[in-house]
């Protein structure tokens, strides 16, 4: 191996770390939101649609107000509204959460594209960078460590969520509803109310994840902005065993896998680009197969989840 080869390996690794940090943010937000929703005993498969609606509305609000942070808030509110729509439909008798989720997935994606037609050309203000690599003189390292405040918020959110789930009355109530509807009923909790709140918060997070896409990275509104991140984040929740802290690592792992193709391209390896592009999807499959078993149920799965019954 020549010296040049070494530099190549290092720059590929740096590029992967850099884009893992960038790409993982939407995964992180969607999976944290979905963790909360699933902890309440419901699955929201519509988060892909919520992500797109968040990206679109966040871009629109940022464009209109000139503030990207107001855009993030707008995206969250739109996401929460979508979450409430899901929760409202699911609270009707004999309505299946998975079917509603798929319907909202398609509806949200299509609706966002429809409403977002006029947003394709204007340029909205971008969310600012945080320069975590300021101490280094290596430009490639500095570039890799340029992150967004949302990533840091997301990483801090994970332990906060874990704490809330175990140390607040609301957290205990949420877990009760997700783990035993009988117990929740016996305690007089409103199951639909708790689930609606959890789904709305989950939708808020997914909307924020969408705003990250349109306002930071890639940083523009396009019709194919999301490539299934919202859907894969649902898989990621299973892989993370419904633990918010694990969601952080899982999101970084998936982000790294998504970054493989672009990083190799950046150092001039362009062959098999689309094959590397498939890395996150292959990873999803491999992880699901590896972590599943025909012999036992998933440990830590909320008992009320419809996939778990």
């Amino acid at each position, binding site marked *: 191996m020549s010296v040049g080869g070494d530099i190549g390996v290092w720059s590929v690794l740096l590029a992967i770390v850099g884009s893992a940090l960038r790409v993982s943010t939407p995964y992180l937000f969607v999976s944290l939101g979905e963790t909360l929703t699933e902890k309440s005993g419901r699955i929201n498969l519509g988060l892909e649609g919520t992500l797109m609606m968040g990206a679109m509305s966040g871009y629109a609000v940022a464009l209109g107000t000139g503030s990207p942070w107001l855009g993030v808030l707008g995206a969250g509110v739109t996401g929460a509204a979508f979450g409430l729509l899901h929760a409202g439909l699911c609270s009707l008798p004999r309505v299946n959460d998975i079917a509603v989720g798929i319907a909202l997935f398609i509806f949200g994606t299509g609706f966002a594209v429809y409403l977002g037609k006029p947003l394709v050309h204007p340029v909205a203000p971008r969310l600012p960078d945080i320069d975590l690599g300021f101490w280094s003189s290596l430009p490639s390292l500095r570039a890799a460590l340029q992150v967004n405040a949302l990533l840091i918020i997301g990483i801090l959110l994970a332990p906060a969520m874990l704490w809330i789930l175990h*140390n*607040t*009355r*609301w957290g*205990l*109530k949420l*877990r*009760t509803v997700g*783990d*035993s509807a*009988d*117990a929740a*009923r*016996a*305690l*007089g909790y409103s199951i639909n109310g708790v689930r609606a709140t959890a789904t709305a918060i989950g939708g808020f997070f997914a909307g924020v994840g969408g705003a990250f896409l349109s306002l930071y990275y890639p940083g523009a509104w396009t019709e194919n902005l999301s490539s299934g991140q919202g859907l894969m984040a649902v898989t990621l929740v299973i892989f993370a065993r419904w633990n918010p802290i694990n969601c952080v690592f899982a999101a970084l792992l998936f982000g790294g896998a998504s970054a493989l193709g672009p990083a190799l391209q950046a150092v001039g390896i362009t062959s098999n680009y689309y094959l590397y592009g498939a890395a996150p999807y292959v990873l999803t499959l491999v992880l699901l197969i590896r972590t599943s*078993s025909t*012999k*036992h*149920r998933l*440990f*830590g799965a*909320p*008992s009320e989840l419809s996939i778990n019954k």
Partner: protein
Amino acid sequence: MSEPSQVEAARVPLVEVVGMTKRFGALLALNGVSVRLEPGSFHAILGENGAGKSTLVKCIMGYYRPDAGRLLLDGVQHDIYNPRQALAHGLGLVYQHFTLVPNMTAAENLVLGQTHASPTIDWANERARIESFQRNMPFHVDLDARVTSLAAGEKQKLEILKQLYLGHRVMILDEPTSVLTPSEADQVLGMLRDLTKAGRLSVVLITHKFREVRAFAEDVTVLRGGRLVGAGKVAELNDADLAGLMFGRETVFASADRTATKPGKAALEVRSVTTLNDKAMTACDALSLTVREGEILGVAGVAGNGQRELVEVLAGQRGIEAGEVRVAGVHYDRSRKQMRRYGVHLLTEEPLQNSCVRGMSVAENLSFRNFDDGANVQLGCFVRRSVLRRHARTLIQRYDIRTPTPDARLDTLSGGNVQRTVLARELSGTVSVLIAQNPCVGLDFSATSEIHSQIITARNRGAAILLFSEDLDELLELADRIVVMSEGHIVYETPRAAADVETIGLYMAGHRSEREDLWASNA
């Protein structure tokens, strides 16, 4: 009501139910029932399935809105429209099924439902409070144990602790002992009786077991067909009085005659079978047993010691890790073909979930064993529905399945009738091997004795019967031989004639033969 001192101080109210009536469409489920519950009393409500016991409880607890009737606490009328209001008045309900949250610890379950101003939980403080509360209780549970890891008896104790910790001073228990060993049941009910004697609690025990009424209750109210048919002091009524009230006639509890057959060849052999449970842990560990023709082998054991997994292995629902099952001397691969050839039949517990399709009709459910038989199929693939329906009509009549038509959906039938449907399907063919698992859980006296006599009849005809039961009385009545299953092993075996409840109970509780002497010397 969150402070333990206040919890302790909460007074037990006088509870009066006056003229409670509840109608479901044309059905009068509860017809002017009145019950008076003195503070600190232990009151049993006795009745068959469908007598209105659960309806009465649900009206009291606010799950149903009664059509008429009042609830008075200390003489003051209260309208209770939802369970939360009932809980706020100190009425607690312990369900047939546990309402603990399985993936939470005991401590978390106790803290749940406490009404606190603070939205966060100060765990150090909460634990101190729970521990001081437990010190005053006759029983304790490990606070850090997850509910999923607790045995049934522990769960029931935790459930009761939870109700007391919530400050409930009137506790309604709906068939609480169905999941417990006899000694656990006695322990739990005994503790409740002690608490009532100390004046800290009133207990309403919903049951159909005379033994529990007799051993623990002071007062008894008997319901039949939604009406109150009798009430009084337990001490002043004998079993015949109670049975007469319950059934409206003098019922004779005669078990079917057991013919003195000599057991024949080995019909069902389980040879060193190892299998895993849903968590991939060993459920049965190289377990062996043999059932011979014309013999009932009873398997005693606390739920969760591998019985369910073993039944699933025999039913073909669960994989075998090691070992072999043999029927009539040959390897049994649990295929439909073999089940039919060797006449292997199954009565699983919770039949509606485990051996029926709830959305299909009674007639369809009755035909699962034979719809694809030669005579029921024409042109190789078309099922003759008319033949099956005629067959269903015969079975419905013979087994007294109460259904409006053979085409009614199975899940519209009552529990007892679902059970009869499965019984009809499984016992009407040629039965050489029958595997039965808690076949009478949740059934009333008459249905139970009917199923018992069917099982005995099958035995007398020469069938080999493997009977899993958590009800020791049932095993002592039916089995020719009894084995005890504990932690996936057979730990004890005795012929019926030599069976002793206490010894069996010890082995059920986890004593192994090598520890027997040790235990005896300590006792």
